[in-house]
């Protein structure tokens, strides 16, 4: 067990975990930040995507010890009032079905749009094709990313 002062969503959060614990489980079990989801545990589905120093990163295979000093953003910190352009676009297009994967989808989209403000459709597809949506909401995700891009 080790103590960590994690920089998450603009706050410093104290927690104790064994160093190999994936960030995902520290967020969920220790810190109550459950918007980051478990889907596969092997970085295959993207449900656990968070931002580490601004980069979209899979938290299910990322040991907490590796992010002790990093700046971490989860869906809960993407915006203060749930009004990040990506969140607003997801609502406007009414993307979710079950909604379980959507926080990971939005975290991927938000990091992508920050780097590429005017993406082509092909670039959106390339950026988003690592995130699985079992309900098949891909058309709306694509539309929502396009809409968000106009508001960033």
């Amino acid at each position, binding site marked *: 067990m080790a103590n960590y002062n994690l920089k998450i969503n603009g706050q410093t959060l104290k927690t104790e*975990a*064994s160093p*190999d*614990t*994936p960030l995902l*489980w520290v967020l*969920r*079990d*220790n810190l*109550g*930040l*459950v*918007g*980051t*989801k*478990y*889907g*596969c*545990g*092997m970085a*295959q*589905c993207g*449900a656990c995507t968070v931002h580490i120093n601004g980069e979209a990163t899979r938290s299910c295979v990322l040991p907490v010890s590796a992010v002790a000093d990093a700046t971490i953003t*989860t*869906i*809960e910190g993407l915006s203060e009032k*749930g009004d990040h352009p990506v*969140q607003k676009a*997801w*609502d406007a297009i*009414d993307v*979710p*079905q*079950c*909604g*379980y*994967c*959507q*926080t990971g989808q*939005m975290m991927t989209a938000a990091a992508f749009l920050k780097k590429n403000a005017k993406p082509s459709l092909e670039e959106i*597809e*390339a950026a*988003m*094709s*690592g*995130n*699985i*949506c*079992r*309900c*098949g*909401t*891909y*058309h*709306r*995700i*694509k539309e929502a990313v396009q809409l968000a891009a106009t508001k960033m």
Partner: protein
Amino acid sequence: MTKNNSRRDFLKSTALSAGGLILGFNWFGQEASAATVVEGIANEAGNTAFNAFLSIQTDGIVTIFSPNPEIGQGIKTAFPIIVAEELDADWANVKVVQAPLDTKKFERQVAGGSGSIPHSWQRLRKAGATARQMLVEAAAKRWGVSASECSTEKSFVIHTASGKKLGYGELATEAAKLTPPTDVKLKDKKDFKLIGSTVKGVDNQALLTGKPLFGLDFYREGMKFAMIQRPPAFGMKLKSFDASAAKASASGIEVVSLKDKVAIVGKSTWEVKKARDLVKIEWEKAANLESSDDHNRIFKELLDGKAEVRRKDGDVETAFKDAAKIVEAEYQCPFLPHNPMEPMNFFAHVREDGVELVGPTQTPQNAQNQTAKLLNIPAEKVTVELTKMGGGFGRRLGTDYVLEAAELSSIIKAPVKVMWTREDDMSGGSYRPAVRYRFRAALDKQGNMIGYTLRGAGINAGNSTRQDNFPAGAVSNLLIDSAEHKSPITTGPWRAPITNFLAFAEQSFLDEVATAAGKDAVQFRLELLEKAKTAPTGEIKYNIDRMKAVIELAAEKSGWGKKKKGVSLGFSVYFSHASYVAQVAEVVMKKGKPVLQKIYAAVDCGIVVNQSGARNQVTGGIVDGIGHAMYGNLTFKDGTPDQKNFNAFRLIKMNEIPAIEVSFVNNGIDPTGLGEPALPPTGGSVANAIFKATGKRLRNQPFIEEDQKLFESVS
């Protein structure tokens, strides 16, 4: 579902202590319109102590309880839309609350079979209309006018002549003192404003900001975490285990056996997962350990052996003897895991005085009853709180994972959340059964289908046919039978059970027959329907006109019959779960490979309740259908699945989807189901278009493995 008429009079009526109206409705029996204002409610809306159907607070907030489990099908939005429509409530002031399981108040709290809307349509409308009528009466009384002089709009009662207006909130307390009417007038469907409009999901804001909504998001002070090691192969059972290393790995680790499984309990997910890897378990063989090769052999035996007759019309033998041409083909599909993004999990707290269950289930009442049976206690001692489900696709119709949690909690005497890893989920069974179909069709000289046989051979598939489906009724001589192999590999309903693959096989085979008859695919189907209408054979259990209408709409939208340069079209139509869906798939050749460019879907689900939700269901069902037809495969070696996570099991991704254009038939018929019906026709439209484009007939799923070369250059 049994009707429980003895509970007709359970509903009472009263005002909220803080004022306002709470209405409860008789949910049992569509004809019973009994509504009463609920008595003895001390708290404001949101208190889980009551399950009244709707309440109106003095501030005008309308709270509607949605009794059915939300799995992504959008029921939590669709149900309240129907109530709010008849109530003429201002949607902006409607709050939706998920009701827990309550068998005394609700009926059919199930997510499955695309049945929630058809079952509840009238009940929900009556609920809204009753409340509306009471509010109108309260206003009329206050104004001293006749109720017939009043109208309603956006949570206001309006006296048409004088223009006087009163908000529902202002009227709620007075309305609560009235006796609910027993005979209410429902709206004329043409006056619907909210029904049929585009309404966003009621949980969007919570979902998109990461609020705890799902079963896995449920945490409670003092709750333990658990994972369960289940037998590594279907056909194996527990022999012995040594937990010493596991117990030493972290503080508080407990290891207990649950029949043929070993449960690991601890203080966090990660500690439990690591401890589980350290439990040394010996398993022993208890049944045959089957491999996919065995299944291929078994299919052949079943297809050539005896079968149970499901439908027999006319004289098939003579028809085939007289045939000018005979078409034969076999189609096969593999087992499939459901793979909801949220793996199985459930919370259970077994206490002396009762059992608390919280989690994602499509069948809360089964969870309650079976838990009661398992623990030998009365069902009313078991409460079930419904969380949102991260998908289910039929997997959460089962209760195995609920019972594990309940049993474990009873053993360790503590509240516990059992979580399945993705590997547990994918190798845990309850799969879509693997099936092989053998078709034969007899054509006369004019290319008319005079004989048709279908045999289904399934592994734990029950009846793998749907014997009354089209083209039954349209062929004079028909034989449909099925044979089954009982396997240790467990199966269960998977979105659009049986028809998720049967539709592909039937619609592809009909395409083969049309080709052999030298007929256009659409024309061929329309001719068969005409025959079913004018000279039916046996019972017809689909609506010929509705099927014809979606065929024609899909043909029209896709430009069927008109040449489009470089574009090959494939057709498919299916009736399932009381709805009709026809599809046309467009395939183009790019660098020598077939690429699915677009799917046109024509859908008859009766009245569309919510345009946004309905389109999401259809599009999602089609994407699901394409993905599993193209890529989905679960194979076995000695009872163990070869694919255990998404690195080996391929799910469709964003860069693999075609454009999808959805058109609804607007026929004003009461709504039928939509969670499933769009999926079944998908494999057929796609395969038929690929055949047109390449001459290659795909008969086995997944397509990508049947003919790797065909798709080799597919990105």
